Each structure stands twice: as structure tokens, then as C-alpha cells.
């Protein structure tokens, strides 16, 4: 739960913080109110009260709320779902409301595990900038006949390609995690909407819907941006590969960088012969074998992220192409 507060505080500002505190108070009140009910098996002290096996809807609801306050989101989700499955109309709005909280928290946890979207985007942009520079120097080298320049351009191209590949993988992982968070938040949004539909007086649910819609819109913006960068990186890798092919054609065989003639340098680890002494390779980042994100994959991932209902949320405002917060905190 603490992590959830932090996230809302960081990203949603005062409005989100106030809403969350209010909602949390509401949640606790619900829990206490339910625990004071008929069976009397639970007390307000969530830490010391012995917990019996839930037998009725109230028990399931209370057990779920207890787990939610303890931060055991997966268990809380199970209890709330069990409470809802029992189809007791008295508990459905509250159970849905709390289930929305649980799923929002799960989404936030997914984001915490994910590579930072801003950092990944920034790294992707740096890699693209470097790729541009490599392409420019390669064109110059190809126009002239300076062997050293040709070799240097070739080696730089290899480094740029490697960096692009690694960055694309980072972006892909960030997109996957953001996608998982998005699906959780969309479900949370559905839960709050359902809670509001069953109890139109639930002002907290209404406020939460607004907050989550806003958060989802931001998340989709980030996903779109990352998908766009992934696509650009894939394209640039192809261009660099083409340039490297031309460079290799112009470099005489004895001076050619390591690797089989006519092959592009995909993975130097796979090469039978390593770099020659005295030859420098362009800067690359450390990392395991990576798989690049193709434009098609990026499209598929984005297509999966549809907003619920017909409501169109506000998308990017245009300034996302160059993130301002280059050292943004990890979600």
C-alpha cells in the first residue's frame, strides 16, 4: 500500500493524493462497518484478530479488505472475487470498489518492476542520435576512398547496431510491463465503473474513475512513444546494416574487419574470430543477447491496448517526443 501512495503522490499530484487518502479512509470504514456486522468474528484490529475461514459473503469481503490493507494484493483479489461470485447485492458495490483498488495496486506493482519508460525512451533517442551520426559518417566514408575511414565507419556501424538492438529490447521489456499495468488499470477502471453503476452515490468511485482514466491516458502516451521509438530503431538498424554492406564491399579483403565476407555484423559473440588487435569498435552497451522490436510487434502490442468502452481519452499533447524529465524516477 505504501508503494501505491508513493506512486500516486509522484505522478498524480495533490489531486490524486487527496483522492487516495479519502478512498483509503472509505475503504477502512467499509471494512470496519462490515466487520461490525452479524457474525462478529472479526474485530477492528487487523493484526491480532484470529481469522476464520470465510464462509459467507461478509467474511470474504472482510478477508479481502484485510489483505488489501496488508498489501497482499493477489490474495485480496481472490477474496473479493469470491465475495462477488456469491452474488450478494449488499456487498457488490463495496467489493467492486475495493477490487478496483487492488487491481490499481497490481498495475502499479507491474510498473515498479518495469524499466523506466522515460529512461528507456531517452536511451532510445540517444541510440537513434548516434545511429544518425554513424549513418552520416558512413555516407562520407563511402563517398571517399580513405580506407581508414571506411573501416572506422564500419566498426562504428557495428557498435551502433548493437546498441540499437539492446535499446530496442529494453524498450520492448518496458512496453510489456506497461502493457500488463495497462490491462490491470483497465480492469480497475471497469471495477470502479461497475461500482458506480451499482451505487450511483459512490462519489469516490467517480473520482477514482477520473484519476485512473487520466493515468491510463498517460500510460498509453508512453506506450505509443515507445512503440514509435522501437519502430524508428528497427528502421535505423536496417539502414545501418545496408550501409555496412556497402562499406564491406569497398574494404579490401585483407583489411576487412573480422567476420565472413558479405555478412552483416549481427552478433559479434557468434563470430568465429574476434576483433583484431588495434581495431576499435564503436561504443556498445553491456547486455545479454537481445531481440529487436519489430515495427509489426510494436503495432500488435499497441493494438492490444484499447481503452474500455467507447470513451476516447486525451492522448499525447505533442511534447512527448522529447521527454523533459530525463532522469525520471522509476515507476
Amino acid at each position, binding site marked *: 500500500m505504501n508503494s501505491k501512495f508513493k506512486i500516486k503522490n509522484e505522478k498524480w499530484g495533490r489531486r490524486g493524493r487527496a483522492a487516495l487518502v479519502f478512498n483509503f479512509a472509505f475503504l477502512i470504514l467499509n471494512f470496519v462497518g462490515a466487520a461490525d456486522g452479524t457474525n462478529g468474528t472479526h474485530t477492528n484490529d487487523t493484526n491480532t484478530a484470529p481469522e476464520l475461514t470465510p464462509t459467507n459473503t461478509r467474511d470474504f469481503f472482510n478477508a479481502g479488505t484485510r489483505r488489501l490493507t496488508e498489501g497482499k494484493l493477489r490474495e485480496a483479489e481472490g477474496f473479493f472475487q469470491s465475495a462477488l*461470485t456469491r452474488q450478494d*447485492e449488499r456487498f457488490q458495490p463495496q467489493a467492486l470498489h475495493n477490487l478496483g483498488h487492488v487491481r490499481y495496486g497490481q498495475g502499479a506493482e507491474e510498473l515498479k518492476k518495469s524499466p523506466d519508460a522515460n529512461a528507456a525512451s531517452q536511451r532510445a533517442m540517444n541510440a537513434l542520435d548516434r545511429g544518425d551520426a554513424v549513418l552520416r559518417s558512413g555516407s562520407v566514408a563511402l563517398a571517399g576512398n580513405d580506407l581508414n575511414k571506411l573501416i572506422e565507419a564500419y566498426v562504428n556501424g557495428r557498435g551502433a547496431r548493437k546498441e540499437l538492438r539492446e535499446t530496442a529490447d529494453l524498450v520492448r521489456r518496458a512496453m510489456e510491463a506497461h502493457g500488463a499495468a495497462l490491462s490491470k488499470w483497465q*480492469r480497475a477502471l471497469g471495477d470502479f*465503473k*461497475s461500482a458506480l*453503476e*451499482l451505487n450511483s452515490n459512490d462519489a469516490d468511485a467517480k473520482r477514482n474513475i477520473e484519476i485512473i482514466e487520466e493515468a491510463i491516458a498517460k500510460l498509453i502516451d508512453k506506450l505509443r512513444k515507445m512503440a514509435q521509438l522501437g519502430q524508428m530503431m528497427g528502421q535505423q538498424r536496417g539502414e545501418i546494416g545496408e550501409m555496412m554492406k556497402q562499406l564491406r564491399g569497398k574494404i579490401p579483403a585483407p583489411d576487412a574487419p573480422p567476420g565472413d565476407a558479405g555478412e552483416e555484423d549481427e552478433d559479434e559473440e557468434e563470430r568465429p574470430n574476434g576483433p583484431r588487435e588495434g581495431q576499435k569498435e564503436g561504443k556498445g552497451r553491456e547486455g545479454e543477447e537481445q531481440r529487436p522490436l519489430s515495427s509489426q510487434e510494436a503495432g500488435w502490442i499497441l493494438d492490444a491496448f484499447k481503452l474500455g*468502452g467507447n470513451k476516447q481519452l486525451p492522448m499525447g499533447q505533442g511534447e512527448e517526443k522529447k521527454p523533459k524529465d530525463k532522469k525520471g524516477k522509476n515507476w
Partner: protein
Amino acid sequence: MISLRSLQLLICLGALLICRNDAGANSGTNFFKLGTAAYEQKDFPHATKMFATSAASEPAAGTFQNLGNAEWQDGRTAEAILAWERAACLKPFDRNAENNLKFARESAQLEAPELTWCEIAASWLPANVWAWLACGSFWLAVATMMLPGVLRWRRSATQQAIVALCLGVFLLTLPTNYGSWTRSQIGFVLKRETPLRLTPTAEAEAVTKLAAGEPGRVLRERGNYLLIRTRRTTGWVERDDFALITPR
């Protein structure tokens, strides 16, 4: 005292009512004929429409049987099953509908509705026959008990036997009538991959997806949603996605 004018008016109203019923029956028959013609010409969508209109104005087992056949030919398994179930409900002795149902369910890998013992007993005769039996036996028992006293007849053993028999029949029809009523809560999912919702809301989480033609029993209603129990689970479906054997 009823005046001559009032009597004439009453006769006219009665005649109008009879004519209207006749017209309804005629239009039902006409639609049935049109449906049969369309079916023979393999125009199944049109045949479906005609049989459905005929069944709406004049429900009959044969019409539902043909409607089911047309729906089946048109590739609408759920609607075909529903029509045959309705036919079987109206005419339990007719084996055609039952055979068709068995075949359709085997083809579509669907299960038949789970019936209680009183629902099985209720399916031996048409639902209205059970209602008539209950009413008839009850009033016959009452009449046999009361009339000898009113008409000053001598009570005989035969009369008492009739009363006992009628009351027995009445008591036996009670569970079957209850079965007919509970059977009327059974229906079928009409659309493919109908989401079974956890809550009766538009944004509800889907518990599972139901196949078209899957049976369910209505437990409760709320707004545009019906709480149904299938063989495996319970959840809410939209009204339009589900149809009862006996429409309300």
C-alpha cells in the same frame, strides 16, 4: 334490464372478437404456408421470418418444429435449439423435436438442461394439460363433496371414491405444475461467446464465455441483466443474449 340496443352492441362486440381471432389464426396459417414455401425453395432466412411470425401469432408445436429446422439450415444453432425446445414443450409426445435436439447438441457439443425430478415429470405432458388436470380434479372434488348436500342427494361410496380420486390427482399434479413453472425459468444463450458477467454492469468482469445454445436457469433479474446458473457457474448475461423456453 338490458335494452335491445345494449344486446345488439354485445353481439357485435362478440362477433368482432371472433372475427379478430379468426383473422389472427388466418394470418398465422398464411405465414406458416409462406414459411413452408420459402423452406422448400431453400430460402431459409425468409422461412425463418415467416415461421417466427406465425409462431408469434399462433404458437404451435409444428410451427416451432419448422422454425427450428429453418434456423438450423440457416446455421443458427442456438435459435434452432430454442425453437425445438419450445416445440417439445408444447407437444412432448412428438419425437421429432427431441431427435433434432439430440442431433443438434451432439453436433455442436452442447449439453441439455439439467432437469429436476418434478421438471422431468412435468415434461411428460404439455404444461397446460397439467394445469387443466389440477383445476379439473380440484373443482370436481369440491363439486362432488358439496353438490349432494346442496341438492339433497344421498351420499354414496362412489361419490366418496370420486372425491378421493380427484384429490389424489390434484395432489399428484402439484409437483408437476411446480416443475412446469421452474422449467419456464430455463433458457438458452443465443449469441456466440456471450460473456458471463460477475456483476450486472456494463463494465463487469467476464467469468467465462458461453457458447450459443448453452442452457441456463434464470435465478434473478436486475435491469438489463439476468442472473443465470449454468452447469458450471453462475453469472449475469444481457437480456438480449438469452431466451427462455417460455417467453414472458
